[in-house]
């Protein structure tokens, strides 16, 4: 039972962490809270199916063999985010952070309405990877295969992202730009290159969340981006704005708290699980208003 709970917490928290990372990456380099991130996720879900307002979804990209499908959706997410950066955020580059944030809201609403026009407002069933629900016996616990895959995928993504940030040229430039963009530019780092790269990564992470949500729920819903966006945003705040380890830690913690509350709350209180969860968030922020991890910054020493 407790092992089951651990897997629940890890798989849920892992997805929250991936979603939070998508927001923290962009905040890190351009101090933009991208509220369109949830809609990037929703768009990546709908990219699997053909546009129509029918109740039953006809697969589009979803017909591809799984490895190709994953690549195609990751590419779609990265491309969508890069296009959004070039069309919406680049013209606003030197605007105030508030203007950027409002721009991201506007983009999110525009994307959601585009989905409504193309696909209609009713949730659609998507039947992909039906076999993943099969339980796997691990010691005393029965764990759905999907959960194991999600946990493994999250670990692999975190390692790959960490390696990329630590070892690659783009990673080095992104970390430098996150600390002091002006200084990085004085050293010849190209702002467009770094920001575009951050959006591409963020969009690919949104696509990962989209794939997991489809596999878990089997549904494409125009509204599905909102809930995960809210939790991911909270995770980036709790983690410390712009701190990538913070976003991961807070995403995992919120997932774990959510799973624990789901299991531990009395039946009567269970419908109010999210209220307890957000109360917990407020409690944490009362004690650490700057978040669990303060973002790294150059503190000049004299």
């Amino acid at each position, binding site marked *: 039972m407790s092992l089951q709970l651990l897997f629940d917490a890890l798989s849920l928290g892992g997805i929250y962490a991936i979603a939070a990372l998508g927001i923290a990456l962009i905040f890190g380099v351009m101090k933009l809270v991208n509220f369109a991130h949830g809609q990037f996720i929703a768009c990546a879900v709908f990219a699997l199916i053909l546009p129509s307002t029918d109740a039953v979804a006809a697969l589009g990209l979803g017909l591809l063999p799984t490895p190709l499908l994953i690549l195609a959706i990751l590419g779609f997410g990265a491309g969508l985010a890069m296009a959004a950066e070039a069309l919406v955020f680049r013209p606003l580059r030197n605007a105030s952070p508030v203007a950027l944030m409002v721009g991201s809201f506007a983009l999110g609403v525009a994307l959601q309405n585009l989905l409504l026009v193309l696909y209609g407002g009713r949730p659609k069933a998507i039947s992909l990877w039906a076999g993943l629900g099969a339980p796997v016996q691990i010691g005393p616990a029965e764990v759905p295969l999907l959960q194991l895959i999600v946990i493994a995928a999250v670990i692999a993504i975190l390692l790959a992202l960490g390696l990329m940030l630590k070892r690659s*040229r783009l990673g*080095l*430039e992104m*970390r*430098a730009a996150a*600390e*002091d963009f*002006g*200084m*990085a*530019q*004085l*050293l*010849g*780092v*190209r*702002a467009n290159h770094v920001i575009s790269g951050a959006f591409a990564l963020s969009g690919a992470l949104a696509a990962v969340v989209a794939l997991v949500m489809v596999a878990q729920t089997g549904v494409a819903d125009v509204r599905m981006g909102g809930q995960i966006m809210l939790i991911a945003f909270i995770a980036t705040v709790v983690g410390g704005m712009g701190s990538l380890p913070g976003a991961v830690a807070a995403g995992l913690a919120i997932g774990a708290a959510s799973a624990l509350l789901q299991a531990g709350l009395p039946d009567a209180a269970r419908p109010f699980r999210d209220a307890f969860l957000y109360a917990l968030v407020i409690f944490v922020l009362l004690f650490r208003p700057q978040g669990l991890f303060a973002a*790294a*910054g*150059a*503190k*000049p*020493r*004299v």
Partner: protein
Amino acid sequence: MAKLGIHDLAVRYGKLTAISDLSFTVAEGERLFISGPNGAGKSSLLGAISGAVRAAHGRIEMDGDILSGLGPERIARRGLSMVPEGRRIFGGLTVRENLMVGTGIRRDRAAVADDLETAFTAFPILRDRANAPAGALSGGQQQMLAIARALMTNPKVMLVDEPSLGLAPKVVDEVYDRLCSLQALRGLTLVIVEQSSTRAARVGGRMILMRGGRIVADGDAAGFAAADLLSEAYFGDPA
């Protein structure tokens, strides 16, 4: 031809004029100190040359090519590098990573490795702390890192803003000592903002004295220090 030419430069922040009608040239391999009281426009001048600050009008040239209006990323590619005020070290990156940030504009991989070796030889402390977070270095070490980091872009012209700020005199001696030997080694053209004209005189070079966004004197730094008791008092400059 002058290495660096500034012609009729003006910098304004809203209605506030930081620099007006400023013109001077710097010869290749020269060491030029810019001095003057707070608010004289020294940092604005370096900002305008490096592209970090937009000039209201005027022209900045390097080797006859116009730099003004290019923006810092492209000016860095032309071979002009900056050691900014307050050093602006990437504190969360390691010392080695700080040094590597500026090498993205270079295609000569082997020369980058050579330059890293040169930097480590000039500043052995940076080799010792290569894998430590740069934020853990002392102020003097961070200043040396900032100089080494600027050199890693393989510049022809280097701008240094107040390298002595907040450092003990002995450390300042060391910083200037390294700066001068690196200049000789690399044939660099150096433009250094330095509050103290006595310090500039001791290091040696040409000096421009600024006040209220204009040049009020231009000559050998040693001459300034000798004849300078008056203007030192006049400007209230800490010596």
